[in-house]
């Protein structure tokens, strides 16, 4: 069995010549792609937008979709629309429908929704079924209420359930990256350990190859129930033991364990073997089932609205005094806002770029320029705009003894100088919940796409 990973992230691109190589293969069984991540931050989940670009996502899909549908190779998409809430799934569904229409395609699509209700999470919290994943984020009913979208990150179970219905496309909400590739392998008899290990390495596309690239394809061949072989379709890349083994540790806390909703893969005894100068065979990964399965849930809540102003400073004295000057600015703004806004309603931050690295020898007067961002987050956009404008104008003209560049302290690269960034979201939920059934948060629909 052969499984193809389209790229590390739908919308980040892949090389057409790699797809041409794949099209010449006669034994491709599944094509998968991950389409989301929490790495770009909580804003996209909170706002219901994708961090990937619509045109780029459409390009990546329209090259492969007609081929996959015509050849009856199921195309599996995980964490649709970047964050995998209902609105993100819908966003991707519309793109798929447009491609189907333009190419006169007709096929069945399984849609797995994995968004959960606030009541679902509150119920888990009340019953002591919520677990923290790290310090700094306590789950409260208040925060649950503040979340705009809450998603559950599902594992292989719902994918396997959907695959049983033999859809042409699976479009899934928030899911483990591994589940996209492990599900078809497990369904066809592969052991869960090697299936998860294989999926973990290939989910970033050709990031496990040399030269590495998330923006290219990877092909995995399931040799038997215990082993798989990775080989990039792009002839200008190779897989080596070193790259493949090194990629196993990418983006996760421990290189020997991969945690999944129903247990963990144990890679301590994994065996890597170069079967050619560009293919690596991997075997001997175990899976340890857990007694109490869990699903990770993620929720983002509104934290305010942001306005920023970007500027450069070239005067060495101003640079050396910037922190003190900014304190003057903050006091001035507090005075100006008296009676207009509560100090709790806005936060002023100064972000500095070009500051000396720790341990480096700094001359008293730096011989370089500094970039700054005046960063204001407030309860309303209007308040953020007002506070940022006051900070910007005051910092521009703050005087100090010995000041030489007295016509203005800041070089603004843009007019307008102040940029509205809109709503700011923060993670309110990033927790594990105990589940009775690994499919309890999934709703699977089978729809007809195209004429």
């Amino acid at each position: 069995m052969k499984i193809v990973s389209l790229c590390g992230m739908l919308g980040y691109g892949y090389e057409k010549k790699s797809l041409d190589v794949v099209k010449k293969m006669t034994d491709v069984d599944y094509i998968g792609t991950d389409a989301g991540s929490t790495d770009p931050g909580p804003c996209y989940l909170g706002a219901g937008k994708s961090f990937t670009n619509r045109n780029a996502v459409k390009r990546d899909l329209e090259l492969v979709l007609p081929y996959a549908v015509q050849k009856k190779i199921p195309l599996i998409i995980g964490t649709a629309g970047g964050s995998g809430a209902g609105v993100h799934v819908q966003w991707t569904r519309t793109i798929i429908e447009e491609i189907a229409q333009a190419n006169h395609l007709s096929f069945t699509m399984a849609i797995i929704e994995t968004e959960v209700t606030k009541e679902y999470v509150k119920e888990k919290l009340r019953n002591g079924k919520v677990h923290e994943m790290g310090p700094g984020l306590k789950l409260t009913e208040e925060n649950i209420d503040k979340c705009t979208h809450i998603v559950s990150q599902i594992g292989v179970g719902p994918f396997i359930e959907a695959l049983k219905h033999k859809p042409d496309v699976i479009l899934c909400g928030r899911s483990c990256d591994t589940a996209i590739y492990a599900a078809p392998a497990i369904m066809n008899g592969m052991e869960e350990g090697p299936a998860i290990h294989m999926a973990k390495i290939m989910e970033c596309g050709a990031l496990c190859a040399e030269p590495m690239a998330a923006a290219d394809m990877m092909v995995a061949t399931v040799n038997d129930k215990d082993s798989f072989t990775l080989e990039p379709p792009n002839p200008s890349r190779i897989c080596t033991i070193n790259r493949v083994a090194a990629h196993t540790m990418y983006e996760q806390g421990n290189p020997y364990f991969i945690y999944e909703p129903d247990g963990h893969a144990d890679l301590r005894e994994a065996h890597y073997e170069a079967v050619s100068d560009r293919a690596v065979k991997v075997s001997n990964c175990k899976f340890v089932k857990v007694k109490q399965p869990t699903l990770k849930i993620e929720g983002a809540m509104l934290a305010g609205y942001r306005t920023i102003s970007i500027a450069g400073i070239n005067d060495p004295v101003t640079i050396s005094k910037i922190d003190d000057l900014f304190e003057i600015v903050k006091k001035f703004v507090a005075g100006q806002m008296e009676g207009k806004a509560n100090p709790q309603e806005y936060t002023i931050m100064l972000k500095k770029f070009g500051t000396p690295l720790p341990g480096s020898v700094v001359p008293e007067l730096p011989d370089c320029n500094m970039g700054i961002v005046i960063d204001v987050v407030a309860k309303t956009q209007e308040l953020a705009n007002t506070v940022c404008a006051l900070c910007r104008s005051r910092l521009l003209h703050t005087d100090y003894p010995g000041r030489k560049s007295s016509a203005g302290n800041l070089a603004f690269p843009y007019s307008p100088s102040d940029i509205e960034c809109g709503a700011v979201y923060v993670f309110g939920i990033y927790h594990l919940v105990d589940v009775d059934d690994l499919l309890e948060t999934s709703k699977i629909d089978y729809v007809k796409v195209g004429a």
Partner: protein
Amino acid sequence: MMEKLNDIAVILRSKNAGPLSVTMDLIFKDKKDFLRVKNSNTLTQQAVGKAYGISSKMVDIVYYDIVNSIKITIPRRTISGNIDDDDVYGCQQQLPLANILIP
């Protein structure tokens, strides 16, 4: 001779491992460089904790011998995307580690 980790490792990278943690990979060119660091007893939880200003109990160090690598995971200074965050992907958090001196 004391050398910075940054000068010994061929890869020294950081990245979010979820929005609450940042994980750092040190990959060495060969077993010799890897063992120099591993056996130096310098790259301890205490040393990493001190470099990042956090408790040593929060530092997780795993030696990944098969690819001459070391993985270090610590909690993020603030949750990814919080209003006081300055590195959402966590991929530029390697500097304090890079500056640790190894005999």
